[in-house]
């Protein structure tokens, strides 16, 4: 069912605090889409690994009520939170960002599709750097 929904993201790498844009295409005529009650598009970080999994949403879900008349193209735009989290693949903690499209169809298994993208740290203004440094002579 997922191949009926095509999620296209403009850029596969987005900076924290940046914007992820794209479009969702509904490719084929399916009777099920006529019975669609609601279309939901969500941008979220899926945090998983060895611990209990959780989600961090980027803003509110984009919701569109009513049946889907194909061909249909739904553009979306989500702002990634300034503090991330950024994409990460560790041993016990993994963070994957994705756009999830879900179609709520009464009395049927909801068709859904996801598209992954990466969130990377943003570039900041230069800050004074240096090695380990302990200023001397500042003892009270």
């Amino acid at each position: 069912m997922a191949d009926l929904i095509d999620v296209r993201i403009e850029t596969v790498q987005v900076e924290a605090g940046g914007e992820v844009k794209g479009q969702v295409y509904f490719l084929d005529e399916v009777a099920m889409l006529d019975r669609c009650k609601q279309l939901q598009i969500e941008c979220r970080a899926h945090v998983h690994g060895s611990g209990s999994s959780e989600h961090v949403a980027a803003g509110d879900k984009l919701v569109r009520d009513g049946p889907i008349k194909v061909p249909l193209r739904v553009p979306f735009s989500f702002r990634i939170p300034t503090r991330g989290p950024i994409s990460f693949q560790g041993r016990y903690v993994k963070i994957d960002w994705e756009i999830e499209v879900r179609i709520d169809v009464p009395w049927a298994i909801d068709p859904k599709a996801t598209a992954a993208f990466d969130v990377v740290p943003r570039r900041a203004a230069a800050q004074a750097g240096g090695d380990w440094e302990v200023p001397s002579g500042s003892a009270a």
Partner: protein
Amino acid sequence: MNAKKTDGEVAKVVGRFAAKFAVVLVGLAVLGAAAIAGYDSTWIMVGAGVAMFVAVYGWKLIRGAARGAILSEATLVSEGPAPLGGVAHLRLGLSPTRPVPVTSAKLTFYTQERAIYDAGTSQRTYKEVIGTWETPLDVPAVLDKDLYRTVRVPIPLDIPPTFHGSKNHLESKCTVYLDIPNWPDVELETEIVVLPEVVHG
């Protein structure tokens, strides 16, 4: 860059376990002696049990009390978040109650991932240290007056920024160790919030 434990640190850990084991043995010996001598050993058993419990599980309490005896104030506070490749500033404050000899002092920065798995009523925590960096701290050989310093800690570029979910965490912490002869070490820890920003140059 992962720092391995030095021989001295290994010896200290082994010594700590040996001390706990010795206290347990002494407790058992006291109980045995009381039983052989025919004393009513109820209170002796209670006392020995409490002493053993404190020795085995109350190490942090003992260390905290020992620290309080020589330092009226011991603080390590982060002044704010820092970007990747930037510098974090920490405030170190030490107020000795009497002259305290310090053999060595070091500052350790580490980043770890921590995941908590809940299954029914049981909970399991997984931890992995991603990187550890350490450097000696310039502290007087004898701490005889208040010491307030700002410590600058460079943040590596190849660590993940701080993230605190409800069950999954990516966190960076700084620990200051003061090695005091014939006394439990002073250990101060604080978290540094690392922002998802990269500073170049």
